[in-house]
């Protein structure tokens, strides 16, 4: 692994009225690593992810990706620039099939959508790419099912596939296991583990077993601020972290 961080978050601040959702939030992500972001409820993890994906503008602070200042970049610019995300609350195209959902992600890579006449579903080359992606994510069997009719676990699978379809260099995973059963979570954890090395991953998760299994490094977020960034064992032993978790849960 190189020693230069691929993604730097420098002192993000975000206030909602009197509440500081993010306070001097700083992160540094190395290429190819799986970097977990954990913290007690209300710590501001989702707000942080929204600011990283571009869906929420910070009040102050800077975000650098591959050396470029992307703080002012809109969400779609960041996605085109190599940053993808998945959502904690499944965010798919409900009235489309699994195949069509993935097709939306793949079509995005082409950049040119002012095609008014040709039927998009008859493009052979394009369809092959979609089928390949379906197979890669073991979704071929349910490819024609409407996403709204899928079981929750399957929807989460599609959610992940959608993010990966963009072939990002940074993937923001917001609680990918949310609502999944034990077995489903293990399968999802396997999939995430296979990503190590090919892209940087920021993983927001509650499930500590998963976090300690997958993470190369962990950042702990408390009241909008990162209080500790270190390797899993060191984080586990860190007294500040224990206070934050044990203190919070009383």
């Amino acid at each position, binding site marked *: 692994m190189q020693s230069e961080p691929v993604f730097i978050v420098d002192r993000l601040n975000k206030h909602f009225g009197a509440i500081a959702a993010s306070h001097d939030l700083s992160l540094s992500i190395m290429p190819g690593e799986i970097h977990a972001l954990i913290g007690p409820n209300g710590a501001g993890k989702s707000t942080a992810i929204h600011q990283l994906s571009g869906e929420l503008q910070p009040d102050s602070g800077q975000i650098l990706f591959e050396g470029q200042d992307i703080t002012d970049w*809109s969400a779609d610019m960041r*996605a085109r620039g190599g940053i993808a995300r998945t959502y904690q609350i499944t965010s*798919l195209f409900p009235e489309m099939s699994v195949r069509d959902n993935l*097709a939306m992600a793949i079509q*995005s890579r082409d950049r040119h959508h002012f095609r008014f006449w040709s039927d998009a579903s008859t493009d052979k080359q394009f369809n092959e790419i979609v089928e390949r992606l379906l197979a890669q994510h073991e979704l071929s069997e349910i490819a024609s099912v409407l996403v709204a009719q899928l079981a929750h676990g399957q929807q989460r699978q599609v959610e992940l596939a959608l993010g990966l379809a963009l072939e990002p260099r940074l993937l923001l995973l917001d609680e990918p296991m949310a609502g999944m059963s034990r077995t489903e979570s293990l399968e999802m954890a396997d999939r995430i583990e296979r990503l190590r090395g090919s892209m940087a991953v920021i993983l927001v998760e509650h499930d500590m077993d998963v976090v300690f299994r997958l993470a190369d490094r962990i950042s702990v977020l408390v009241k909008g601020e990162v209080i500790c960034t270190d390797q899993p064992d060191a984080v586990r032993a860190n007294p500040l972290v224990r206070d934050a978790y044990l203190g919070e849960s009383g």
Partner: protein
Amino acid sequence: MRHRLISISLFLCLAVLPPIAYALDDPFWITIATRMLIYGLAAMSLDFILGYGAMVSFGHAAFFGLGAYVVGVLTHHQFYDEIIPFLPFDWTGSVSALVQWPLAMLVAGLIALVIGALSLRTQGVYFIMITLAFAQMLYFFMIGLPDYGGEDGLNLWTRSEIWGLDLSESSQFYYVVLVLVGCWFLLSSRMVKSRFGRVLIGCQQNEPRMQTLGYPVMRYKLTAFVISAMGTGLAGALAANQNEFVSPSLMAWTTSGELMVMVILGGMGTLLGPLFGAFLLLSLEEVLAGWTEHWMVILGPILVLSVLFARGGLYRFLVGKRDAK
């Protein structure tokens, strides 16, 4: 497939309507049908953004009226052989359909570009209210123009001219309108299946996701808005021809409301639904008006009830709900 069956039967029936009307010695049917086709075209154009892009424009009457006024102004100047005052070059207008109608679409499209660029910065309720407000602004602007009749409107002394045809003859005009509606139907059915259509539908179902997938959604929504306005503008041009009269009431907000009602009653997002909706609404108005002059007091509740209970629209009912798209 059911859709194909319905669309083919529909156009066939429409194609043989004039000879049947003449055979029954009641050519008035042709006039009614022409009116329904014209409003149907306007509603179908609106459906392009309403049913496929989730852009609820409450100001489409503006484009309808603008298209009509382009025809009105050009005919007026040609007839009186007067130079149009606000242009940088000398032109006394034209009554050629091949000049007027594309120009009507162009004007509608350009105004839509401006309105859309401003309005599409907003979403949801804001968008609805803003499109309404802009349409109202244009309505007042037209009322304030004394040169073109203001509130009283403007008479057209002749219909548009197409070489080889006589548009003042009702069945010839009817067929021209029918062909245009057919063309729009073909065009829009290709557009919704194209890449561009996919982007629109994606925006309708989950716009934030489209953004985080990397789509710069604004430019596609704006393009769709402009295309939709152009179709409605063409309908306006045809309406000006049929009535041989244009007035600001074409741009009234109630007209925008009527177009939306046609889309919903007929079935939004179904391409042909709005055409059925136009037929339905205009027929309902005719029938109810025959019973009582206060027919609106019956139409109002019908409308409320159908919104509450018959959401899918007539077209989906005909096709069978599960096969709706």
